[in-house]
């Protein structure tokens, strides 16, 4: 009980800290709010001292940050979130409207994501249900490619091809159900691909558990075995699903922009840039609340799905039989990537020739040219080193932090929720406020968010792993906590989390590039991959190769990471043999599972 109270207290403390941090933002970054508000109202207005003084008086920021914050919090108690500093409109209805649109978009996107994840797992499910999984490698390159596609690229392709050229669905606006389809696809496909990969990663383990064999032997249909296998694996993914829910609600800026959706992502982005503190605080608070709700919901769902087994320590370890690791596929992907980079490296990435702009691929320019006539192959090749080194370094750090914090879920879970619910731009601004705008700031800003899903994944896997019989057995044999951690828990948890981190590596590269407009990160004419995508996006329709080239190498990177990580399994010597893994537990598990079938997923 007292633990729960402490958890709630920690959560509230974080939320309060966040709101106060936002309230202090202008003073921490030494950026005058009157100035940014003026620029948001009218970019061309000269910032003369008189104008700024007038605005400062209008906003009431003369009294300093504490005065402003106290005033806002006082209003909040009375249910008044203040007025927007830019427009003077009431914040509460404004943010509520935006939140409504975003929640709806997220809801439909989640549906798309779940369907996508289902399609990705279909092959494993079908084979597993027929007990033919043994000896087959998981595929997964396709889903890895999908997972590494940037949302804005999917969005612009859908808007142009389906919306404009085919005219099947409206390409713009937010006026009814048919308007939700394309944006939801743009958000849901990559998210679903990540979830699908993670699920597909766990499923073979579930099918390999003794209960599945027993169920099949007892004559249960493949369908219900598959359903139980999904039910067995989903709890480990629920925290990540919760993170997606919140992330898609507050961070869908690019998709909102392409489809002109009046959502929370754009609202908070504008407020963050203009330092419109009341809107920013209200928006962030709403997202933090949503995060708390989502976490609560995922906990309840997890309990419904694995409750008794988790409590009784009656799970078996979710480790698939050793797959014959794909030796050839990663080699092919790796060789392809290296070849592209090598060929690109010998060409000049910065040579402009505006007469040659937007040329289609040819012998002279195998990947075509960009809007300034630069050779794209050269740019892709030269960008590889920067992009990969930085993104890999950040991913590694995020993995380390994620696993470490994931080991102490009581401390990290509220932290994960809070960090994840803060819009990325705001994180960047807060990091800049603390660390200054040095060379390391963009990496810090991206890293500050990147560890969160990994920590959530770690702690959910850990929760399940702790409930397994072999841990109970080890404990019974006198293993101390350190021994358990080193020899039982970590070896079981780290490989899937590592694969997860690799899956997110292209996303890290994109996140880095998205901070460029704050003056953080790579600046043109650097050929960093994220920047390549961003600068060629306006030409996506006229010169598709200009975005396809960087998107393709990112996708190749994703495929390489996933296929190479297929070999990263738990060391064979620690893997319990199926028969020794507690037949009794499996029996009990399958009985409870049959009894509670209505609550199952699938």
């Amino acid at each position: 009980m007292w633990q729960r109270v402490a958890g709630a207290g920690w959560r509230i403390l974080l939320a309060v800290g966040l709101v106060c941090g936002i309230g202090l933002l202008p003073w921490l970054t030494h950026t005058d709010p009157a100035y940014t508000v003026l620029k948001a109202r009218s970019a061309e207005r000269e910032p003369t001292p008189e104008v700024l003084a007038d605005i400062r008086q209008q906003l009431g920021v003369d009294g300093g940050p504490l005065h402003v914050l106290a005033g806002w919090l006082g209003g909040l108690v009375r249910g008044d979130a203040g007025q927007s500093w830019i427009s003077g409109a009431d914040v509460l209805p404004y943010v509520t409207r935006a939140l409504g649109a975003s929640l709806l978009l997220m809801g439909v996107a989640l549906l798309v994501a779940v369907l996508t994840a289902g399609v990705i797992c279909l092959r494993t499910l079908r084979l597993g249900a027929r007990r033919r999984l043994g000896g087959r490698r998981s595929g997964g390159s396709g889903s890895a490619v999908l997972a590494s596609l940037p949302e804005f690229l999917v969005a612009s392709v859908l808007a142009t091809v389906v919306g404009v050229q085919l005219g099947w669905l409206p390409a713009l606006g937010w006026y009814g159900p048919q308007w939700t389809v394309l944006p939801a696809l743009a958000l849901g496909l990559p998210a679903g691909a990540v979830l699908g990969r993670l699920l597909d990663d766990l499923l073979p383990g579930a099918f390999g558990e003794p209960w599945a064999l027993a169920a099949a032997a007892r004559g249960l249909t493949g369908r219900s075995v598959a359903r139980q296998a999904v039910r067995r694996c989903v709890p480990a993914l629920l925290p990540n699903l919760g993170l997606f829910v919140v992330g898609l609600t507050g961070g869908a800026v690019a998709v909102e922009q392409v489809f002109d959706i009046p959502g929370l992502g754009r609202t908070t982005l504008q407020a963050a840039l203009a330092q419109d503190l009341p809107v920013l605080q209200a928006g962030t608070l709403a997202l933090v609340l949503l995060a708390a709700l989502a976490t609560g919901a995922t906990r309840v769902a997890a309990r419904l799905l694995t409750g008794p087994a988790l409590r009784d320590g009656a799970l078996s370890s979710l480790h698939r039989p050793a797959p014959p690791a794909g030796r050839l596929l990663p080699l092919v992907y790796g060789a392809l990537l290296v070849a592209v980079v090598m060929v690109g490296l010998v060409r000049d990435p910065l040579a402009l020739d505006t007469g040659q702009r937007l040329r289609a691929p040819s012998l002279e320019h195998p990947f075509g040219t960009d809007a300034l006539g630069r050779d794209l192959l050269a740019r892709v090749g030269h960008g590889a080193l920067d992009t990969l080194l930085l993104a890999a370094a950040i991913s590694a750090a995020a993995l380390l932090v994620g696993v470490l914090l994931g080991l102490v879920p009581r401390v990290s879970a509220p932290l994960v929720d809070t960090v994840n619910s803060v819009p990325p731009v705001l994180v960047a601004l807060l990091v800049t406020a603390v660390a200054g705008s040095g060379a390391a700031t963009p990496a810090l800003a991206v890293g500050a968010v990147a560890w969160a899903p990994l920590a959530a994944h770690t702690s959910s896997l850990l929760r399940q792993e702790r409930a397994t019989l072999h841990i109970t057995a080890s404990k019974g044999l006198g293993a101390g906590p350190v021994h358990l951690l080193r020899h039982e828990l970590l070896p079981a948890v780290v490989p899937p989390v590592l694969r997860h981190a690799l899956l997110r590596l292209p996303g890290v590269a994109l996140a880095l590039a998205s901070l460029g407009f704050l003056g953080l990160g790579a600046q043109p004419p650097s050929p960093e991959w994220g920047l390549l995508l961003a600068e060629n996006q306006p030409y996506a329709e006229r010169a598709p190769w200009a975005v396809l080239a960087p998107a393709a190498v990112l996708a190749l990177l994703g495929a390489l990471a996933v296929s190479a990580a297929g070999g990263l399994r738990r060391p064979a010597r620690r893997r319990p043999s199926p028969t020794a893994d507690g037949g009794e537990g499996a029996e009990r598990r399958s009985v409870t599972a049959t009894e509670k079938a209505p609550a199952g997923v699938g």
Partner: protein
Amino acid sequence: MRSHRRPRLLAPLLLVPLMAGCFASGGGDDSASGDGGDGDGARLRVALAFPPAENLSPYGADATLLSRLGVTEGLTALDANGSAAPALAESWRRDGEKDWEFTLRDATFQDGSDVTPAAVAASLTRATDAEPAPAALAGVTLSVKASGDRVVRVTTAEPDPVLPLRLSSPSLAILSKDAYAKGSRVDPVGHATGPFELTEVNGAASASLDRFDDYWGGRAQASGIDARFIADGTARANALRTGELDIAEAVPVAQAASLDEKTRRDTATTRTTSLLLNASSGAFEDAGLRAAARQALDTSVFAEDVYEGYADPGAGIYGPAVTWAEGKRTAPVGRAAVKKPGNGDTITLATYDNRPELPEVAQVVKQQLEKAGFTVKLTVREYSRLEGDALDGKFDAFVLARNTLLDTGDPVAVLASDYTCDGGFNIAQLCDKGVDRAVADAEKIADTAKRQDAAMAAEARILGSDAVVPLVHQRIITGVADSVQGVVLDPYERTLVGTGTRR
């Protein structure tokens, strides 16, 4: 078990009524309802690029939006030559140094009340009291009084030769008494004088307008306007292509090629993209190096390639949209001799990405300067994160797109603010006695033609200092559906829909 499952699957349907609240309202009218049942003039569907920032307050940037949609008018307007033309004021005369008399025409507000001198005086007085003051009134003190039946008398604290131009600013639009009824907020909905009347505003998403039948300039042909605010240029172009829109404002150059040739109309604007060189610190403090930079730039590339022909090569501070400028232009005065850049001359070049072409321009500038022997480091940020540093002189060079006629329509104003020692927007950090004197001379002249001559003399001095290298004069592309006629393509970007616009 199955019977238990059904209702659970149906449960989400209960959320459907709730969902309706999550969609944006308005703007979704399809063309059927937009055609107007009364058969005289269809409604126009217009997409504007800038959403209202301040709840359509007439004192900020939203003023332009109101005047572009034909909602508000001032006492005067700008004509094609950039001189003041009659609008709500039929005529005016200067009475001594500081007094002006404006004679009003017979007009009514959209709420039915008459446009009386008292109403005009009250409206303008509110504008002078606004905090912060509208940009057109920055540094100006004026008092407005009704004087007789049809006459408004404006008195300025200092002689102001460009007052009629100043009053053409959209932020000095005339609104009826009721617009000011709600405390500090000014509400233009139904209280203006233009051919279209705002009826509904949905935040920053859309607005509906109806024709104002008693407009003094005659009834508009379109029965109303459904305006949507779409910030993303690609999205605007897409909406036009799918037939969701009749008029799309400011189509980005990158999207122009995706529109039919008949659909895209381009107009020269008063916006000039220039390279500003920091004349008071860093490498470009040396006029010889500024001259070298100027000489290194091949400006033809920008208009032809980066802007794909939707721009004119930089000729001076004023472009072809300022129609009188070309005929009065004189050669730059006092240029320094070109010096060869040394090895240590690393310069920082900055620009912003709010206009997508600028980073491209900056990258071409970088390459051209590097060819001439400079070492260039480029910085690209969002504008509001950049301007402060630029005004403080932290960059050696800056690529800026600047409206050269500003809020007043007075050509001298931009010279005074951008290139004089005391100028408030002096990114070039230019402080040159000759320039200051030439600008001060021009500011004193009341006669339009002579003022223009003096402005061009000052321009020649400023160009002579090489603190600014004009790169291109932008053209704005408006996407207009085939069926639409009479769109007003205004180089000053103050009007878009007029009484003659129809489809």
